[in-house]
């Protein structure tokens, strides 16, 4: 109920922003065009989606654009969920939503670390789960599972801010 209202309010404020609507086993989902993404997220925050539950990134390798980004939103008023999908290509910068939801700060850092998607306007875009001089992005589908240089030892001397 609230989703239909939100989507119609959204298409009023940002026309042509919603490319596709879907229902994933009970969770409504909208696919958003890259150029209006930040405005859409700002509008959704204003419409009552006050929690960003998670940021999911996935690599669909042979496809261009290569990555899918998924923002799982939730409204604490009536506990309705909404997923916002965005397609991003390799090297493309996605506007950070950490100014809207604090939880995006670490969520986006994780996506940056494991998938190598860069976020513009992020306050602190560093690796989070792997170490600073780690090479590659583990959750990309072309990341080697084994090999000669696969498991390089951790070297604290090459890390600049090692306290």
């Amino acid at each position: 109920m609230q989703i239909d209202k939100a989507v119609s309010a959204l298409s009023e404020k940002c026309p042509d922003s919603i490319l596709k609507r879907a229902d994933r086993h009970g969770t409504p989902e909208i696919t958003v065009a890259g150029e209006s993404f930040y405005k859409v997220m700002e509008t959704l925050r204003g419409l009552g989606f006050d929690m960003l539950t998670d940021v999911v990134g996935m690599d669909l390798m042979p496809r261009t654009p290569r990555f899918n980004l998924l923002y799982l939103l939730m409204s604490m008023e009536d506990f309705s969920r909404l997923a916002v999908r965005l397609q991003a290509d390799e090297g493309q910068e996605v506007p950070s939503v950490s100014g809207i939801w604090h939880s995006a700060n670490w969520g986006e850092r994780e996506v940056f670390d494991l998938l190598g998607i860069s976020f513009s306007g992020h306050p602190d875009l560093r690796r989070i789960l792997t170490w600073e001089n780690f090479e590659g992005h583990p959750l990309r589908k072309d990341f080697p599972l084994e090999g000669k240089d696969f498991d390089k030892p951790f070297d604290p001397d090459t890390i600049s801010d090692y306290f």
Partner: protein
Amino acid sequence: MTDRKTVTLNMGPHHPATHGVLRVVLELDGETIVNATPVIGYLHRGIEKICENRTYQQILPLTDRLDYAAASANNMGYCLAVEKLMGIEAPKRAQYLRVIMAEFARIMGHHLWLGTHALDIGAMTVIFYAFRDREMVMAMNEEIAGYRLTPSFIRIGGVAYDATDDFILKVRKFVEWFPKALEGYHQLLTENKIWTTRTMNIGAISAEEAINYGMTGPSLRGAGVAYDVRKVFPYSSYDDFDFKIPVGENGDVYDRYLVRMEEFKQSINIIAQAIENLPSGPVMTDNPWLANPSLSEVQNDLSALIRRFMINAKGVPVPEGELYSAVEGAKGELGFYLVGDGSEHPYRLKIRAPTFYLASALPRLLVGHMVADAIAIIGSLDFVLGEIDR
């Protein structure tokens, strides 16, 4: 004005009060924290990557190792996600047994939190009582699943074994006895002057801010938001049971403590209802791709033998599709975003760990407090690094 110099203090990763390998870089002005930077990843095992190369059943023991203090809740979340994608549902008896196991996991997780949190702040007695009772829960886990800490008891399509009479008897005894033990914890802490001084108005956060930081579970409920996945999106027959969602007011360490103490009571309440109303019937779905044929079938029927090999060696194909499925773990909303591509392996499995987002709120909670309060705040959020780092 004189220039005030700050000192950088490195807390962790090898610090007993960080409950694992959490590292927080604290910038101190005297004893006051002016800046805090959590550093995580010391326990990163790449579980999400491993999952992409394992069959759906092989992933199950890995989920035990996320929040190892409350393992059954993770099993439940993962199994529900896979079952939802396959379009099957576990039998009613299995759902009730799952609820019992998940609530045991919550009680075990809260016992670990209570004991260590009180120990960190200086109340040493509590941990002995908490671990004595945790041992009883683990004995029941052992009775039904064969494992104490990481039961892997909840399987895709149902549960591993049926409940034994001995198990039901032990659960009944525990349900009868535990409220008395809980009363004992309350006597030790709730009105203890030292405890209230150390916890009240420490690490307070408002409801809006807690939501904005993505906090869930007891930490969010402590701030006064009655959000519990068990009530809002009922799964596994949780709507059959009568239980309350305790909420706090101030969102400080003491309110988070009270919420968890009340959750003990609600959990034991749910277990009592589940064990008394345990329906009869099978504990595993009859889907031939999931139910292992019995030993006598395997010994007498060639097709059953082949089926057993197929299930265990090749795995179960799961249809194409994507979904998000969440359960209420001991620490908050534990979500699994599962992408299936029609094969025996998930294309992508994203684990939404509740403590990951709790840890991201640490700078906000720590700044302005004393170093000693950092220990209380970290303890009250109940981190398990296996889940944060995955």
